[in-house]
């Protein structure tokens, strides 16, 4: 059976503020989807809502994984069900070593029925696997002993997210600007690694502004988000067009969505100024 992640008519608010206004998206296992769109259009919100962030309230619509109601699951249950998100801004957890964190995470995701307090993956086995994966990502072994995202450079954080993707082997992964803050070489490495880990082996939703990350992960579908809606869907050529020419054509073609986007951004600026 092919796994399917299905988002239907999804409406999401933060506080009283509506952000997503009816998103429909179906991702089959093995497919790669690119999600593009101007700042503030709601791309990260979509990812966070799928992952179950408590600050994002679902006011309408459904999300299912192989027919199971994802919205009924807590975030950790979603992770154990095989959903993953590489965050645009990962959180630092001071004092917690990458290796300890990853060992817990990997154990729970691989053994979804594990009870709290039960054995973790044996240390030796885990270390060996972690070391291999880190070498593959050309990460220094010292990385495993550092505290989670604490004092990491932008590039290190993104690589740490990819490492987690590699260890957790989810069915579906949302990668939120995993290329931002990286130099050209680092983006190439990230693109290769993601292809290696996930292309055609997972359902991928790659949120990006550029085409570099897609180089090794050619998307079957490209979606454009504007004002909290997916206004257009196309193939790889759409990603290329948007990368080259920006969103002017899209804004003109969908004036209502463009206005909604402006409105959200306006509030964002007011919040920043307040």
């Amino acid at each position, binding site marked *: 059976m092919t796994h399917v992640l299905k988002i239907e008519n999804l409406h999401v608010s933060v506080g009283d503020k509506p952000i997503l206004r009816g998103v429909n998206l179906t991702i089959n296992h093995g497919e790669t989807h690119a999600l593009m769109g101007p700042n503030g259009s709601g791309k990260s919100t979509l990812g966070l809502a799928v*992952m179950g962030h*408590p600050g994002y309230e679902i006011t309408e619509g459904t999300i299912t994984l192989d027919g199971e109601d994802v919205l009924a699951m807590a975030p*950790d249950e979603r992770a154990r069900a095989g959903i993953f998100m590489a965050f645009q801004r990962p*959180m*630092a957890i001071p*004092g*917690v070593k990458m290796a300890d964190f990853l060992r817990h995470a990997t154990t*729970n*995701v691989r053994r979804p029925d594990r009870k709290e307090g039960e054995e973790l993956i044996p240390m030796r086995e885990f270390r060996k696997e972690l070391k291999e994966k880190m070498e593959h990502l050309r990460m220094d072994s010292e990385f495993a002993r550092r505290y989670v995202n604490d004092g990491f450079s932008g590039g290190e954080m993104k690589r740490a997210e990819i490492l987690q993707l590699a260890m*957790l082997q989810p069915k579906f992964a949302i990668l939120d600007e995993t290329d931002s803050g990286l130099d050209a070489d680092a983006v190439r490495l990230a693109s290769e690694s993601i292809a290696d880990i996930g292309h055609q082996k997972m359902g991928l939703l790659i949120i990006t502004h550029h085409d570099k990350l897609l180089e090794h992960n050619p998307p079957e579908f490209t979606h454009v988000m504007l004002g909290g809606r997916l206004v257009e869907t196309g193939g790889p050529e759409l990603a290329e067009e948007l990368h080259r020419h920006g969103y002017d054509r899209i804004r003109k073609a969908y004036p209502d969505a463009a206005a909604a986007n402006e409105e959200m951004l306006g509030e964002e600026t007011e919040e920043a100024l307040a």
Partner: protein
Amino acid sequence: MSTDAPAKPELGEINKYNFRTETTGVFKAEKGLSRDTVNQISDIKNEPDWMREFRLRSLEIFESKPTPTWGGAIDLDFQDIYYYLKPTSGQGRTWEDVPQEIKDTFDKLGIPEAEKKFLAGVKAQFESEVVYGSLEEDLAKKGVIFTDTDTAVREHPELLREYFGKIIPPEDNKFAALNSAVWSGGSFIYIPKGVSIDFPLQAYFRINAESMGQFERTLILVDEGANVHYVEGCTAPMYSTESLHSAVVEVVVKRNARCRYTTIQNWANNIYNLVTKRAYAYGDATMEWVDGNLGSKLTMKYPAVHMMEPGARGEILSIAFSSAGQHQDAGAKLVHEAPHTTGQIVSKSISKNGGRSSYRGLVSVMPGAHHSKNSVVCDALILDSESRSDTYPYIEVAEQDVQIGHEASVSRIGEEQMFYLLSRGLTEQEASTMIVNGFIEPLVKELPMEYAIEMNRLIQLQMEGSVG
């Protein structure tokens, strides 16, 4: 001896290594405090006159001082406490009398059978002889003295008369006066010039009748250029029917010497833990207090370092964890008495389930102590909205040319941090435990390995709410 007094281990088992050897005589002190009680204690211990006079003078000081009204609420009837419990053999508590919850906790902690019984106040036989025996031989060869303070009063009167009660005189505070009047047990350590002990000296090896009493009295003398790490306490919940624990710890660190004193204590919920700890550090010497406090009803404890001569360093690391019904009023004192001295305080507190943690600290730069440096960092983590954290930093500076830094932060477990960990498949319990362990990691990594492991395990139990 009444059955509600904790029994002590069979002394005959461990006497061949210079532990206290008297096993006879059963003495049941009356409840309450008077000149008679104090005299009786002195009689029983067969003490020299100077110590008896010290005790009696301390009693007068205790009686003349009011109970402190700052810190935490102290609701104690001083006449309803046993001040001295003579060890007995045979008549003690039995394992069956120990409450099930305490036994369960011991099991969760994986405490060895023998230690469990000791901790619960049940007489038991110890297997630590073998370990301790060879250790002791090694120490003796180097001229190290490591004994209980009662024995030291008899066997090392010159050292005791010179230092006992000199760092913390009974006038210091009401509870130091109380301890001075009725003290019993505790450790006495002398490290000769230039001798460096490269493993931590542990009170655990010194388990005997009086090493872990209610009013223990510890004195550590580290002579010039010497080095020692002393570890006290254990992470199992200490179980006692008595509600007051009031210890005094005095440390002298001579020139170029170094002393680290590590305490991890996890008291049962009914205990008032009111402890005075102070060290004098001389030229270029370093004194470090590493102090972890869990449990108890109220803990008031502010380890102090007085930097007496140029180049002296004082460092204090303090961790406090308070849960329902617990108040940790913990902190530190650094007194710069001489120029070019350096002090550092790092304090981390965690409050959960309505627990209350306070940091109370004093940094004092005395006249003449120019070019002193001091930094204080205190971070508090609050796990829920019922819990509370307060910071009371006091800073007194009598010199111009000094560097003083103070940083304080209070954080609640961040929703974003939690979400990050949950999104990786960790349960809420695992995630919050991980965040708390991470929060105290900078201190835990200073602990000897086995204590660090136990500390993490304890935090986990605290987080599960199954202890304290």
